[in-house]
């Protein structure tokens, strides 16, 4: 019976030399005379912690830590035929619902024919052939999809605004400047299923009346950029991008632009400035890009995961998508699970799944059985949710109520060896480094906040410094020009809210309870 061996060729497994696994396995399968076995390059299989991964779907087995010089088990499993009873799926997989990542680890990311064999570009054909632009927008509105870049603005509403705007030309931009440290959802989607993003962009272009698209991808993701470039070329040759797509009057082209290492370019007006070849500095809104964006024309900007959600919505209907998730947060969300959790990797869950399910059922709990201290979401713009709130459902409103944000999907799990003051200082250091310098509250404020946090960490602060810290956080939040500065105080607010005792221990007792900070012991200090 024929069988497939899917070998992960996304960045994490590749760093563990899965390219050599792919090559060696191809040779071994040929040597063993297994004529009915196909060895296939695929994208992310999800469980990055156990890479390099090889998936044998017909055998019901996922093999972990596969080494190129030790392929005996893989070859034997391929030779043996199906097991009598396939092992039940581990909770890491069975608790996930895969919409955005439905093809990840299944299709060859560098083969458009394989994508099309998995219903790829079917949604584009449906939209162009059977639907008006207004009907496409209506379907996206009905889906309840909200922007997956972090802010959660209703996608259908944004599309409708751009559709109504007038301009000589309209643009679609895909924000692939995934800058939050600890976040790798967009990298994984682009590396695993790039055509899905192109299809979503083309459908969006049709819906809003745009003819040109740009993917702005961060330079730290060379493999994602290469796969997108390959996909663009393939789609153009297949007549799925370019003029007169699928023999309709609609034409849409996509170009790739590389970032160059600036976190602020994730902010939409800074991103546009960067695409225009300048320094990535934001400008005040309004006007919003929907009215005046790239080259002062109406511009639709969504992030990778948002565009990647579009094809299934058009294929299965907005009502289907809206049936997943909660009342206000529809559909699924992809998270990059990282930090002190056992099963680090890429997971996709219905909105409303609790943090506890993600950390303990899917994530397999904390490394070494240590206690979970907090879960950080939203990166430098987000907050820390303490373990007593692990039963919080993951949706936009619940996370905001706890002083964090959904963010783009980075989820870093922390155990009791993490100092929350050090973590706040870490994020402030990040924001200080990445502040573009245009507005004073962010440029100077983040530097002052970092200085105050350093003082606390080093046991040199007084309670007056703590009051100063809170007052300054409030000012930076209220007066900064863009999201970077406005949200930079969030990690401080959030850790102060739930871990104020740790701050006080650093200040009053000159002690770091987690043993991280270089606080001099009380006997030595002064």
């Amino acid at each position, binding site marked *: 019976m024929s069988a497939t061996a899917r070998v992960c060729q996304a960045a994490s497994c590749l760093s563990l030399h899965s390219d050599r696994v792919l090559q060696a396995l191809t040779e071994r399968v040929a040597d063993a005379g297994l004529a009915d076995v196909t060895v296939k390059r695929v994208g992310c299989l999800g469980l990055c912690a156990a890479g390099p991964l090889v998936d044998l779907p017909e055998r019901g087995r996922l093999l972990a830590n596969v080494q190129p010089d030790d392929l005996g088990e893989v070859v034997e499993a391929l030779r043996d035929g199906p097991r009598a009873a396939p092992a039940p799926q581990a909770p890491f997989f069975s608790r996930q619902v895969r919409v955005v990542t439905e093809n990840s680890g299944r299709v060859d990311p560098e083969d458009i024919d394989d994508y099309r064999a998995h219903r790829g570009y079917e949604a584009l054909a449906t939209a162009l052939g059977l639907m008006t632009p207004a009907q496409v927008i209506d379907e996206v509105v009905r889906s309840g999809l909200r922007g997956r870049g972090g802010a959660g603005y209703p996608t259908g509403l944004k599309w409708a605004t751009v559709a109504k705007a007038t301009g000589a030309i309209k643009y679609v931009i895909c924000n692939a400047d995934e800058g939050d440290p600890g976040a790798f959802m967009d990298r994984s989607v682009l590396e695993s299923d790039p055509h899905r993003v192109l299809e979503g962009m083309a459908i969006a272009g049709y819906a809003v009346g745009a003819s040109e698209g740009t993917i702005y991808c961060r330079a730290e993701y060379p493999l994602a950029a290469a796969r997108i470039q390959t996909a663009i070329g393939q789609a153009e040759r297949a007549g799925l991008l370019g003029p007169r797509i699928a023999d309709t009057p609609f034409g849409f082209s996509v170009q790739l632009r590389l970032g160059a290492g*600036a976190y602020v370019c994730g902010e939409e007006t800074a991103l546009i400035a960067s695409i225009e*070849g300048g320094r990535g500095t934001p400008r005040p809104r309004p006007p919003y890009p929907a009215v005046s964006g790239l080259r002062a024309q109406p511009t639709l900007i969504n992030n990778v995961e948002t565009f990647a959600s579009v094809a299934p919505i058009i294929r299965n209907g907005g009502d289907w998508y809206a049936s997943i998730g909660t009342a206000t947060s529809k559909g699924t969300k992809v998270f990059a699970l990282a930090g*002190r959790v056992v099963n680090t990797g890429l997971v996709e869950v219905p909105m409303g799944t609790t943090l506890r399910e993600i950390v303990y059922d899917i994530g397999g709990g904390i490394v070494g059985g240590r206690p979970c201290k907090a879960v950080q979401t939203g990166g430098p713009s987000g907050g820390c949710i303490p373990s007593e709130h692990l039963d919080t459902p993951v949706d936009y409103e619940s996370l905001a109520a706890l002083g964090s944000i959904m963010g783009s999907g980075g989820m870093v799990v922390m155990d009791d060896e993490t100092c929350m003051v050090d973590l706040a200082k*870490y994020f402030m250091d990040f924001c200080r480094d990445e502040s573009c310098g245009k507005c004073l509250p962010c440029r100077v404020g983040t530097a002052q906040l970092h200085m105050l946090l350093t003082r606390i960490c080093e046991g040199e602060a007084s309670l007056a410094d703590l009051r100063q810290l809170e007052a300054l956080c409030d000012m930076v939040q209220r007066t900064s020009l863009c999201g970077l500065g406005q949200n930079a105080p969030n990690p401080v607010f959030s850790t102060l809210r739930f871990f104020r005792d740790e701050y006080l221990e650093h200040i009053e007792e000159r002690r770091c309870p987690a043993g991280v900070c270089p606080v001099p012991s009380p006997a030595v200090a002064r």
Partner: protein
Amino acid sequence: MGALLAELIPPNDGERWSAVDARMRQLGYAPDALIEVLHTVQETFGYLGTEALAAVSAALGVPLSRVYGVATFYSFFTLAPHGRHTCVVCTGTACHISGASAILAAVEAEARLRPGETAADGSLSLLTTRCPGTCSLAPVVILDGDVEGKLAPAAVVGWLRAL
């Protein structure tokens, strides 16, 4: 290659410059292609030299001040060549809570370099990055372009000594 460009560049770099010029031609010498062109210059020469910035400025018709402004805004660009070897320590969140600071401190002490510096003999550059997105391997160090994960400080120091 344009006559103006030919005047601006050192003659022995002509071959490498033709790669940059080909890229500029492909991009239609558009001023808004500045960042793409700087990427190509850095790929070709390893850094953005003063002559290179002047040549790009002339070819794209973008004032040199603006070219310099862009080149210094983005952390990916470097105005000085890196050493023969590079050691890039990830300081992303997952690496931070998994011991990146200890790795960085060990490398700083061993190489006697601060992040962003290159050894006087040009042997090594020490750099930091904020997350290449392979957090399952934390803590991560990128040694000569290869992402290495789950490292102890001693392992990185061992690599530096073996250079």
